[in-house]
């Protein structure tokens, strides 16, 4: 306080006017706004690009053999093909989309479906590949998760766990079994110590299938 009293311009006894207080905060607020807007405008396209790249990479990863993909959007209960430019992807975030992958000889490799489920910490958002001809899940990748590092985050890193989703039968339903007890095609081996995260991933796949499988079947029927 003695330091403040020492100031020449503002003696301690003299209260600054309310006007001065408002002006000070107003000026600080104004400059803060300018800094925020400019850094937002500068980083926004980079962040969007990261997100789009991560999604694109994930689609190719969960659908092995895919060389190009089409974006399908849900409109009035039907899947409609849309031109996937980056603008439409950003603009149509509200409308759910899935992605149909094709290989070099233009055959369908499957559908990439993103879905989410509550994990141990927060929502796990993942994308998985579904092959309607084999009726199998052919790949899975986590897009967003806050699972415990070292335990729950093995759903992203553990190769043995990932291998569960390379050819996972979806009928009659996906079942989570303890590690080392996988006997059938529709079973997923849980990660030891991360059962909740493992079950959440299986639930995520089930949820995505329940939502999109009927639509995919309809889409394939109308197409052929």
């Amino acid at each position, binding site marked *: 306080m003695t330091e*403040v009293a020492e100031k020449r311009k*503002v003696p301690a006894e003299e209260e600054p006017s309310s006007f001065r*207080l408002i002006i000070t*905060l107003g000026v600080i607020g104004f400059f803060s706004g300018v800094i925020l807007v400019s*850094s937002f405008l500068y980083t926004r396209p980079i962040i969007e690009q990261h997100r789009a790249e991560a999604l694109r990479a994930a689609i190719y990863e969960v659908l092995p053999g895919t060389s190009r993909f089409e974006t399908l959007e849900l409109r009035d209960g039907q899947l409609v093909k849309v031109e996937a430019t980056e603008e439409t992807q950003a603009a149509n975030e509200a409308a759910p989309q899935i992605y149909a992958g094709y290989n070099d000889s233009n055959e369908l490799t499957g559908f990439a479906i993103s879905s989410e489920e509550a994990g141990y910490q927060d929502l796990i958002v993942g994308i998985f590949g579904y092959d309607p001809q084999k009726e199998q899940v052919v790949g899975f990748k986590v897009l967003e998760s*806050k699972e*415990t*590092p*070292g335990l729950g985050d093995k759903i992203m890193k553990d190769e043995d766990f990932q291998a569960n989703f390379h050819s996972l039968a979806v009928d009659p339903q996906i079942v989570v079994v303890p590690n080392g007890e996988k006997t059938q095609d529709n079973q997923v081996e849980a990660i030891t110590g991360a059962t909740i995260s493992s079950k959440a991933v299986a639930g995520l796949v089930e949820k995505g299938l329940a939502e999109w499988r009927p639509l995919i079947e309809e889409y394939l029927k109308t197409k052929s």
Partner: protein
Amino acid sequence: MNHPAPSNNGRTAEEFLKGIWRENPVFVAVLGMCPVLAVTNTAVNSLAMGLATMFVLVFSSLLVSLFRKLIPKQVRITAFIIIIATFVTVVDFMLAAIVPQVHKELGAFIALIVVNCLILGRQESFASKNPVGLALADALGMSVGFAFALLCIGVIREILGNGALFGFPLFGEGFEPWVVMILPPGGFFTLGFLLLLFNWLQKRRRARTEESLGTEYERAREYL
């Protein structure tokens, strides 16, 4: 203000060094415990949080010190918070653009730098009362000390809990990770042991200086 310091360089160096060891914000002052406990589960996260805090603290101190004569004391806390929040938001955008993976892992804790009492504390107790050079030295010293403390905890927790350092495995397959160390309790354990170590070191140093001073004192006592 404008105390003619006897040796200006010496004072600046002292303000810088005090934050690293003698007045370390974590090990001595025990400030800013929220990020210290929450995001130190890996060395990379610790480092990112340390650097983000450094950016915010240095720039906030710079501005607060520059404008210290213009900000009326009645609205100083509000002004500090606006300045700090601006830089926190900028750092949030920057991390999302430059290192999206780390940004994802740190999550809400970046936004929570705003309420890190270390930062507001330095503005109130130092930057608002000292010229720019000293304020910068103080901010740099404190944030280096903070980052150093975070890194200490992060390195210990990652090695014990994950058997790795900066993501590279250190031990062979035979190492059984000490999982509790990367879970929240591990943060408390590690911090507790490090505080114990620091207190012991300080106590020993104090005892030593007293010893060297104390020989004469003891001689004087013998006369009584």
